[in-house]
């Protein structure tokens, strides 16, 4: 198999990492197309960071192999490092240096020609809206600004792949949204492939492709839309004048099990939008409201792992809200 030439910028085959008896990553087969925003979704401890660590040559796989930008991560670590940019989960800026000094430090480490470095620093500071903070000490920047600076630094040497490990952890929702504005621009404007990990479902929605990981294993990988299509049913919530009678009627007429919740009755049905008119004509109980929710990534995660992802920030499930009576 020739990894390059097939359009995949990251390719892994049976990639495995074990710490003693614990398998952090248990045989990962992955192909990430170039120019994509590729999301790695999973709860904390799923093995996402370990995978990134191996792909970035910071740790050695126990077995299996992987190539990044056509270079083997074990045999050609230097070539891999030149082709990747990295934004870690935690801040890795030198707080005692200025914005520009941090970038110049990186440019020197990557042995960039001086003039190229200068042009590129100017361009990237514009891109992440930090041009006016060029000479500010990093410790005076807000959390969101520091993140943006880190993204700029990750892109400085024009990497083929930008790895982002939980890029918006610890940021408030507003800043998180702003960071995503920049991220979404990058593949378009900079031609870079973005590989990111997240446990935020709302963020996963932005990705072109999504891989769901749990317990070190890759469960499924597809576009968010196709992943959700697998669920093939919508969530319908109705409020009626008499929930008990309505639930009875839904069971006898349509053969569906409706559960009572704080929001009224809820049940799943394929093509919820088309079901609503039928429901209204068949039910004799007065209906106050009907809500149809298409499947979310939460449902997808639940479907593959049997449990909801822990995510306070995302459109979390309210299934456990409990019966009203």
């Amino acid at each position: 198999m020739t990894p390059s030439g097939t359009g995949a910028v990251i390719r892994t085959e049976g990639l495995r990492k074990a710490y003693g008896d614990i398998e952090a990553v248990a045989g990962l087969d992955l192909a990430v197309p170039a120019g994509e925003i590729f999301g790695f979704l999973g709860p904390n401890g799923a093995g996402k960071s370990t995978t990134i660590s191996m792909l970035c040559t910071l740790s050695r796989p126990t077995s299996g192999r992987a190539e990044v930008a056509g270079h083997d991560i074990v045999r050609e670590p230097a070539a891999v490092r030149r082709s990747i940019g990295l934004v870690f989960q935690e801040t890795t800026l030198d707080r005692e240096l200025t914005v520009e000094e941090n970038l110049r430090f990186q440019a020197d480490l990557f042995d960039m020609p001086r003039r190229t470095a200068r042009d590129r620093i100017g361009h990237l500071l514009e891109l992440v809206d930090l041009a006016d903070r060029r000479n500010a000490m990093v410790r005076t920047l807000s959390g969101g600004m520091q993140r943006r600076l880190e993204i700029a630094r990750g892109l400085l040497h024009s990497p083929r792949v930008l790895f982002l490990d939980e890029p918006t952890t610890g940021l408030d929702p507003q800043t998180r949204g702003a960071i995503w504005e920049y991220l979404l621009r990058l593949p378009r404007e900079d031609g870079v492939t973005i590989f990111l990990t997240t446990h935020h479902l709302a963020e996963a929605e932005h990705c072109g492709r999504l891989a769901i990981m749990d317990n070190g294993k890759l469960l499924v990988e597809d576009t968010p839309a196709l992943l959700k299509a697998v669920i093939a049913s919508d969530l319908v919530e109705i409020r009626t004048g008499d929930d008990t009678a309505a639930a009875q009627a839904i069971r006898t007429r349509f053969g569906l099990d409706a559960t009572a919740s704080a929001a009224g009755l809820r049940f799943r049905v394929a093509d919820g939008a088309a079901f609503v008119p039928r429901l209204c004509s068949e039910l004799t109980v007065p209906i106050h409201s009907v809500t149809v929710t298409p499947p979310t990534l939460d449902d997808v995660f639940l479907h593959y792992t049997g449990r909801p992802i822990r995510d306070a920030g995302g459109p979390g499930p309210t299934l456990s809200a409990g019966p009203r009576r």
Partner: protein
Amino acid sequence: MTHADALPDLTPRPVAAVPAPPRRAAAARDLRTLRVLWRREMLRFVRNRVRIATSLVMPLLFLLILGSGLNSALDRPGAGAGAGPGSGDFRSYLFPGVLLMVVQGPAMTVGALIVWDRQAGFLRQMLVAPVRRGALLGGICLGGATSGAAYAVPMLLMAGVVGVPYGFHLLLALAVLVLVAFSFTVLGVLGAVCIRKPETFDIVMGLCAMPLLFLSGALFPVHQLPGWLNAAVVVNPLTYGVDALRRVIPGGTAWAGEDAGPQWWGWTPPVLLELAFLALLAVGALAVAARRFSRTD
């Protein structure tokens, strides 16, 4: 080239893509790594004015108060000026030791920076750069050598206060101090790559620094210590730094005598050999640290 065909052309770039770095000699790249890490150290150094000031207070107190106090306490009857061992000014004797103390703190702090960089995550960023890790460590050590020696400059300027004449020898002393500062930084670096927790590191470094200093002859003559302690003196790299410093600075050896320095089987090595020995140990320790640092888990 596998490089070109995997990159889709459909994504135009606003700036010219950075050309692949010219295939310069690996040595040139290492030099650039050394320089950038050294530069970072210098930037941090000049911005830390408060620390520069405070770090000078302690040795100054040592020199002026302890030195003067001991000088009068140790004033032996019958000791005339320039009449052999025990005759000189104790403060002139203490001067090289205090210089060493001035250098020690900042130099080891620079080595300790690795621990803090690791804690802060900055180290990971460096580790993922396509540079040799040995060059990273080397740059840090050169930075430590420079800033350590820089701390010694104001102290050297005070030579006259303790009766040490001004002259070219002070520049020589500075050169020795650069080497000593380098060694201290290497010691810090070696500790930092082996120990990951800042708390543990501080304790271990504190435990190492004290005996190293006391058994180096920096503060009192060590040639009359009991045998097992004397062995520690002879293997202590700092002993050679201190002794070289003493022999370079006029009056450094006067108080304790010429033969108070380290001896190899009764033979006193010349200053240059002492310095070479110290340099060799430092470079060796740096190589061990670089080896350890280069391991990926």
